[in-house]
């Protein structure tokens, strides 16, 4: 269970505080896969960062008893100078996993990088990078995965593989997915949160949320 209690988030600007989220009260059940919908700047990514514990509410609380992944966005959390393998090792170490050979090999296989896995991440193309970041997060067992738009890149074959991996994870974990690709949301999620007009509404049905989102 992840619960937002009166969560507000604003960023100070020279015109005064700019609110992204205001007095949010949402409960995310453990057995639901959530799609987060909203226009650009509505606070989707901010919500993921709050969930990922790398940004903090200006007021209110977020309560959770689950292992939540880092917010998985396109360019996040990878050190360009390090090789693919070294980055995986770093992430294993901060998660307290010592025997990490299996995870390294899993990521290498899944990301289809081959020898590039041993090259610095900064030399990857954006497609390779998205494959790589996605593979890394699939190598770890979290209770909740935060995925930010990452499914929309990569070639068709890899997209299918990603969705298969996510479907697989959904049997033991749940996902919170930010995407503008409505089809993916429909396939992968069974509940939705729509961010609009500074409010967040929880929808039991994704279709209904998408309908609202299209008519904003």
């Amino acid at each position, binding site marked *: 269970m992840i619960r937002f209690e009166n969560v507000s988030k604003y*960023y100070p600007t020279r015109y005064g505080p700019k609110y992204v989220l205001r007095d949010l009260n949402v409960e995310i059940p453990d057995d639901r896969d959530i799609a987060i919908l909203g226009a650009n700047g509505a606070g989707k990514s901010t919500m993921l960062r709050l969930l990922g514990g790398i940004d903090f509410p200006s007021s209110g609380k977020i309560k959770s008893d689950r292992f939540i992944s*880092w917010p998985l966005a396109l360019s*996040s959390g990878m050190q360009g*100078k*390090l090789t693919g393998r070294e980055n995986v090792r*770093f*992430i294993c170490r901060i998660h*307290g996993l010592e025997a990490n050979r299996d995870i390294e090999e899993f990521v290498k296989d899944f990301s289809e990088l081959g020898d590039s896995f041993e090259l610095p991440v900064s030399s990857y193309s954006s497609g390779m990078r998205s494959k790589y970041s996605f593979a890394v997060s699939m190598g770890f067992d979290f209770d909740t995965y935060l995925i930010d738009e990452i499914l929309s890149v990569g070639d068709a074959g890899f997209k299918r593989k990603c969705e298969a991996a996510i479907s697989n994870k959904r049997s033991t974990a749940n996902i919170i997915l930010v995407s503008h690709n409505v089809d993916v949301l429909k396939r992968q999620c069974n509940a939705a949160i729509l961010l609009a007009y500074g409010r967040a509404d929880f929808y039991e049905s994704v279709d209904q949320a998408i309908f609202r989102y299209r008519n904003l």
Partner: protein
Amino acid sequence: MKARSAFSIQKDVIFAIFIREMVTRFSTYTFGNIWLILEPLLMMVLFMVIFGARGRGAYGFVEAPVFIYSAFLSFRLLWNYTMRQNFSAKNGTQSILEYRQVRLFDVFLARSIIEGAIFLVVGIIIALGLVWLGYDPWPHDLLLVLSYCFCLWLFAIAFGILGCMLGSFAREIEKFISLMTMPLMLVSAVIFPMSIVPPQYWPYLTWNPLLHAMELIREAWFERYTSPVADLQYFVAIVLVFLALAMSTYRLTWRRVLAR
């Protein structure tokens, strides 16, 4: 995933950053990680040659190169490097702050440990080199020197953290600290002992805690040197004040610093 205690998370994170720093810092250089030791080593040798070989630093109680060695090792390697690394802890670490268990404080700690280790390793290597050349570089009271160096290390960490946190709100602090480095070396009794400074100037210089650190280390290092001004109590008090300031500033501002 298994739940870990806060302490074991921090231990894992610091170790991970430690390895990461070692790998990334010189990864693009031809000789790679050797530069970790080679860079301070070359700097020290250079200083010892340009000052020491000319006899600068021969103040009657020790040979010039050993004097320069003791002064620059603690001032440049320990104080300057540790302070700078902590001060610039936000550079190049944005990507690892994307993980919730990695906090800026872990970066501070990991970098401080690395700088402390480099100080010890380079110190020992140069000392062995000096022994080979026929000098006697070993401190008269090794434990005392190491404990003073520890205090200086803590001071550098506290100063660096404070600069890093405040520098996130006012970029000018960065400029100020860069400007300060050279003059600070001149007023901290690094290349001369306080015993050659006329007593009427002492009050203008002794407010500087670094001067006390240098004089204390010198006093413990060389049997025949007694500092006219060194004040352990003052130095320790300043270190404690800066540590308290740094910790409280960190605690009060880290979330805002992260958002910048």
